[in-house]
């Protein structure tokens, strides 16, 4: 069987979902028999070098760069998976949703207890920086997402079972304990 090409990224996430991929333990050896990683922090390939079968997205979109990366994944991947709560519903970064963005920025850079050396009270505004979105978006509210694997992080068994089913076309029968939102 030809190896499936996989790409992964972490947008507004904590890399916990990527860590959970590693939690499949020795099954990772089986995995690399089945797949080849393309653009991904796992192998540090920074750009797509070939068409990808499965794109795995960790994290929601909180800024313009997230949106651009997500869109490039959609363009280059046949199948996209939202992995984890942040990709699926914004997750903890989305706790800021509903609060006016200026208030968030002021708290983070001017008024908050951890402001430290920002004595000039500057809100980051360099053109090189990504622009913040009005709220943190779940990935499927920006591009089409094909599958969702919930959890914070998603259980390693869930990731494993789902990937194997997707790659081999086998039936997915998940035990109760692997689908959790925390």
């Amino acid at each position, binding site marked *: 069987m030809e190896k499936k090409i996989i790409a992964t990224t972490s947008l507004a996430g904590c890399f916990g979902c990527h860590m959970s991929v590693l939690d499949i333990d020795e099954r990772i050896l089986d995995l690399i028999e089945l797949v080849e990683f393309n653009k991904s922090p796992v192998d540090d390939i920074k750009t797509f070098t070939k068409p990808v079968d499965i794109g795995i997205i960790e994290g929601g979109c909180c800024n313009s760069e997230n949106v651009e990366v997500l869109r490039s994944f959609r363009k280059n991947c046949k199948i996209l998976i*939202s992995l984890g*709560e942040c990709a*699926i*519903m*914004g*997750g*903890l970064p*989305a*706790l800021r*949703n*509903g*609060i006016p963005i200026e208030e968030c920025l002021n708290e983070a850079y001017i008024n908050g207890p951890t402001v430290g050396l920002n004595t000039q009270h500057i809100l980051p505004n360099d053109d090189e920086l990504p622009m913040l979105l009005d*709220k943190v978006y*779940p990935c*499927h*509210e920006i591009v089409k*997402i094909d*599958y*969702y*694997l*919930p959890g*914070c992080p998603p259980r390693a068994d869930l990731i494993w079972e789902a990937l194997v089913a997707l790659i081999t076309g086998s039936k997915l029968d998940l035990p*109760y*304990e692997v*689908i*959790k*939102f*925390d």
Partner: protein
Amino acid sequence: MTNKIKIKIDGKEIITDQGKTIVEAAHENGIFIPTLCNFAGALPKGCCRMCTIKINNRFMTSCTTPAAHGMEVENNTNEINDFRKGIIELLFVSGNHFCPSCEKSGNCELQALAYRYQMMVPRFPYDFPMKSVDGSSPYIIKDQNRCILCKRCIKTIKDDQGRHYFAFKERGHKLEVLLDDKMGKEISSALAKKAMENCPVGSIIFKEVGFEVPIGQRKYDHKPIGSEIEN
């Protein structure tokens, strides 16, 4: 002596007492009908619509409808289960349910129902409404973000004169639960704990302790909600 009556749920005949609601009859007979707003000991008020069933091609709430002899009830059907899943999803997108940071996670009935009905992602767009958190009571944090407006706190948490600690405020899409300012400040520790227990979600949190039960030992970590009823 109470009158025994027979009803059928999804074709299975069960025997129950006259005067029981359909959900009571079902649960006593090992048949699960999901509920959220229904609470033992409080008058039912079909708020959540989770326990919707079909009788004679009409949708009814099983928590408010008394069982009647010869009734034929549709419960565990694709149509009804999809409605139930839809309601769960609607509740998720209409509030701010951040399970990973919620103390009730693992013991939350809304979350447990989402597990049971295998909600991977809600079909509706997230609303992310701006909701308030009230920490003015010495024992309670009332977090409107997580509230599903089931009325359980309103119906069950009262003082000895029958006055309500909690009440609805506004209406429609702006509906909220209000903790009475004065009574909230005077609430006893015991009643505050009961309020948290009676809340199906993490909207009422008892202050002094938190995250007491570790992950893996919580109510819905290993078995789906309803499995305690089903035989």
